Structure formats: structure tokens, C-alpha cells
């Protein structure tokens, strides 16, 4: 499971970084989204992977079979913040597109060679 999980993170992060370096602002925002998925999964993985384990200790659960709830809370916070900031970025992106008339990240098309 760990191998598949880490490969998923790697693919997401790789695709995200590639898109982040592209010249169009839409590609940049897709790249940021993919990258933040990768990071969220990574935070989740930092609580160690476990299947069928409960996050909250109750009376009948032995200590060894629970999964760490703290990274889950962190992921939740990170998702909410990431979502809000992405929405804000989307607005700025649209404003830049509207003001400049192009979706290039530098607000002007590069000279054709």
C-alpha cells in the first residue's frame, strides 16, 4: 500500500510541477491544485497508513490498532485553506485575463521568433 500511495503522490506532484511551469495561467492553477492534492495526501501519510483502524480511542480499542487523528485534522485545515486561496487566485486570474486580454502569466504574449 505504501508503494502505491507514494507513487500516487509522486505522479500528482510531478504533473503539478510540470503544469506550474507552463506559461498559461489556467495551467498554473491546475498545477497548483494537483500539487496541493499531493501535499494533502503526503500530510495524511505522515500519520502512518493503516486500514480498518479507528481514529478515536474508545473503551474497547487496543492502543495498537488506531490511526493518528492529528494529520487528518491538519489535512482538513489544509484543504479548507487551499480551497479558499485557490478560489481567490481564480478571481485574480480572471481579472488578469480581462485586463490584459491574454492568459499568459506575464500578461503579454512573448514575441514570435
Amino acid at each position, binding site marked *: 500500500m505504501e508503494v502505491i500511495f507514494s507513487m500516487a503522490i509522486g505522479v500528482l506532484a510531478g504533473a503539478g510541477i510540470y503544469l506550474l511551469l507552463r506559461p498559461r495561467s489556467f495551467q498554473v492553477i491546475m498545477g497548483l491544485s494537483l*500539487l496541493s492534492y499531493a501535499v494533502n495526501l503526503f*500530510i495524511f501519510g505522515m500519520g502512518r497508513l493503516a486500514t480498518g483502524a479507528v481514529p478515536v480511542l474508545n473503551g474497547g480499542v487496543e492502543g495498537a490498532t488506531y490511526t493518528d487523528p492529528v494529520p487528518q485534522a491538519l489535512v482538513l485545515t489544509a484543504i479548507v485553506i487551499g480551497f*479558499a*486561496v485557490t478560489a481567490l487566485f481564480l478571481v485574480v486570474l480572471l481579472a488578469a485575463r480581462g485586463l490584459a486580454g491574454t492568459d499568459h502569466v506575464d500578461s503579454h504574449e512573448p514575441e514570435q521568433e
Partner: protein
Amino acid sequence: MSTHLPILPVLLPLLAGALLLLMRESGHGARALLAVLATLAQLGVALLLVAGTPGSPDTPTSAGIRVYALGGWPAPFGIVLVVDRLAGFMLSLTAILGLAAMIYALARWERAGSHFLPLFQFLLMGLNGAFLTGDLFNLFVFFEILLAASYGLALHGSGRMRVRAGLHYIVINLVASLVFLIAAALIYGLTGTLNMAEVAQRMPQLDADLRGLFDLAVFLLGLVFLVKAAAWPLNFWLPATYAAAAAPVGGVFALLTKVGIYGLLRISTLFGQDAAPAPFQGEWLFHFGLITLAVASLGVLSVQKLDRLAGFMILLSSGLLLAAFGFSGTRLTGPGLYYLASSVLGGGALFMLVELAERNRVPGNDFLAVSAEAFGLPDGEESPLAEETAGVAIPAAMAFLGLAFITCAVVLAGLPPFSGFVAKFALLRAALMTPGPQAWLFFAALLLSGLAGLIALSRLGIRVFWDRERPVPRLQLLEAGPVAALLLLCMLLAFGAGPALVWFETAATALHDSGTYIRAVLPTDAGVPP
């Protein structure tokens, strides 16, 4: 009441900002009053925290460190706010600069767009929280709050230049935030805690193979702070963003880079003791500071416009601070903090001054004209372009501007008799006490960068202030007052240099004494072997 003092710098701007959001945009007077009162209250609280209130039974005040457990949960489990001298000092600096920039903005900039005042309060909240918190993930959250507010403020007034610069600024900071998350998660995964004091406590007990990962995590964290502090080569976003931002926003952004410096100081003192993580061993921070200084010096010499110059001056001070804090040994920390205060006050004043001086130039007015149109500001009394501006205009505007500019230049370039000189002198003196090639490098870099700053400031100053064809700008008391107050504070800092330096020295000693910090946050060493 005094028990809950440390939470007030977070709560006050939050409440004020929320109230300001609910109030009508048209009620300028009431909104302005609320915002000014809230910021004044923050200043009061910050000063009270600096002064300390020994004798109150509920606060564990050991060695001037005050710990506030949110919700009453003790340290390793709950989130704590920690006020030591450095945090108190940064809080006061935030409140002073925030108050000045906000009063300045009330004169006209506040009306160049919507929601300036609430965003400003949220920015202050993020800054205060970042200085106070003792929890790594909480630090991330406060960083996000201050960044989200700063995105809004950077775009304040709209216009093509601002949106373009803002786009780059947001992307850079979003990526930096993701790196921050990776670092925080790694540190949690390795040490099982996010409390900075507890991380510092558990760090030496890590196995050798895990230790490498931990070093990597701290390196990533340092990288994020270096982006915020605008260290070379992570600083190409700064001059464009700061130059495009509205003047009062640029003024308060002068402090934003110092958040990165603060973060670096905090983690390097906490995680950098005896068995330091790899990122804080060696001299690389010092050399990157020197390169930043060199780039910024070339930058100030190359720019043609005052607003870009102000951005590069911020870069210059960042580079100098990085070099000072990266200097081997801890002797430069105290004078470094003094320089931080001086450069933040001077830099903030410069941003506002530049806008006042450049106001009548056509390019500078483009943005204002566009935004005035977009937001339907009425022509006549309130229009920024009108001859008749509302408020009290002060006489001898050009004389005031010239005088203020000279003072600003003297403070930033580090000439006598103001605080910049005292700061640089103290830095040089401390550096030369530890002889070696590093001291001489620092010596040369500091003097050369000061020279570059002086040349650039006087060259552009001559062009702006001795230009006969330039119409005399009208100044309002609301705009001139904050600039004058900031410069006056620089002078006070110079006149009280003796006590101030002693105070900063004590703050630096307390900062480097991480054992006391850890003991104050985690009073009982329960569960941790000695």
C-alpha cells in the same frame, strides 16, 4: 484580564475586521474611528506585553516569557501563544507601522477600492498571530491569514500592473505555503508533535537515519522563510509587487519580509542548538545574505523610479539582516534587531513618502485615475486628481517632503545622526569583535551597500525634488503626519540608542537561550527522558 492579554493581539483585529465588514461602506467616519481605535488598542496591548506584568498569579512568567494556553489545554496537547521579548517587540513594531499606514490610507487610498480597512485588520491579525504562536501548524495558519489579506491588499486599487504583479506574488506564496505544509507534516511524522518547544526537545533523540529526514524538513521550513524574507535567489517577485502596491500597503509590506526573518530566527534558535540540523550549520545563510545585499545594491543603482527604489531598499535591509543573523556566533543578533526596527520604520516611511512625492507625475497617477473611475468616485472634492483635496492641507509641502526624504535617506543609508547609523555602527562593532575573513566580508558588504543606497537615494532625490517643472503636491495632515511620526521614532531610537541597544541585547540573549523557552512552554518534563 491581564491573564488573557496575549490573545488580544489576535482577537482585537479579528473582531474589528469582522465589524468593519458588516458596516456600510459609506460610513467613512465611523469605520475610520473603529479601525484607528482597534489598532491603537493593539499598540497598547503590545506595549503592555513588552513591559510585562510581573506579579499576576496566573501567568507563568519565567525569565520574561509569558505562555498562554488556548482553551486552558496544557502545552503539548493544546496550542500555546508564547510572548518573549522578541515577540513583544515584533508586535509593537507591527502595531506602530500598522497604525501609521492606516492613518495614511484614511486620507485617500482607503477609498480607491473596497474593503481596505477589514483586510488591513486581518493582515495585522495574521502578523500578530505569527509572532505569537508556539505551534508549527498554527504558524502556517497565521501565515495563510496574513498572506490572504496581503493578496487583497496588494491588488487594492486594481489596475493592470497590480494584477500582473499580484498574480506572480500569489503563485510564489502558494507554492511556498505547500512547501511549508510538507515541512510541517514531515516534522510531525518524525517527532509526533507540532509544538515547537517539544520538537526542539525531541530533536536530539532522533535516530541517525531519521535525523537526515528531520534536517530536510527543517531545511524546507527555512526555505519557506527565505522566500518570505526575499533572500536571493527567491526574491525576484518582490520589487515588482511592492512597487505596484498602493503606498500604505507598500509601507506595511515593509514588515512582511521581516516575518520571514523572524521565522528563521525562531526556528534556528530552537532547532539549532548543540546538535544543529544541517541547514543551520555552516555559513550558507551568511553568504546568501551577502549575495542578496549585492543584488539589492545593483538593483538600487539601476532603478529609475522611486517606487521601485523603495522595493530594493527593503531587499537591501533583508539581505543585511540575513547576513547579520547568519554571521557565526550570536553577537550580531542584538544590533541586528535594532537595525530591523530602524529599517522597518524608515522603509515604511519611504514607501509613503515616495507616493506623496510622485503623486503629480503622470505614470503614478494612472492607477489612481483608473481605480477612481472603476469605483465611481465622485469628481471634485474626493477625487484624488482634483486640486482641492478634502482634509487639512499643510503648508510648505515641498519643504516638508524634501526634509522628510533626506531624513529617510539618512536613516536607510546609515549616515549619522539617525538610527540607521547607530544600527550599522553597532553591527560593525559586534562583527569586528570576532575577527576573521567573515568579519571583513561583512564589513565591506555593509559599507558598500550603504554607499549604493546613498548614491541611489540622492540621485533620485535630486531628480524628484529639484525638478522645477514639477507642480507642488498638496499634502494633507493625515498623510504627512504618519510619515513624520515614523521618522520621529527613528530619531528617538537614535537618541535612546544606549538603553535600546541594551534592551535588544537582552532580547537576543533570551532568544538564544532556548532552554528557558522550552522550560517555560513545557513546565514539567513529563514523559520525556532527560
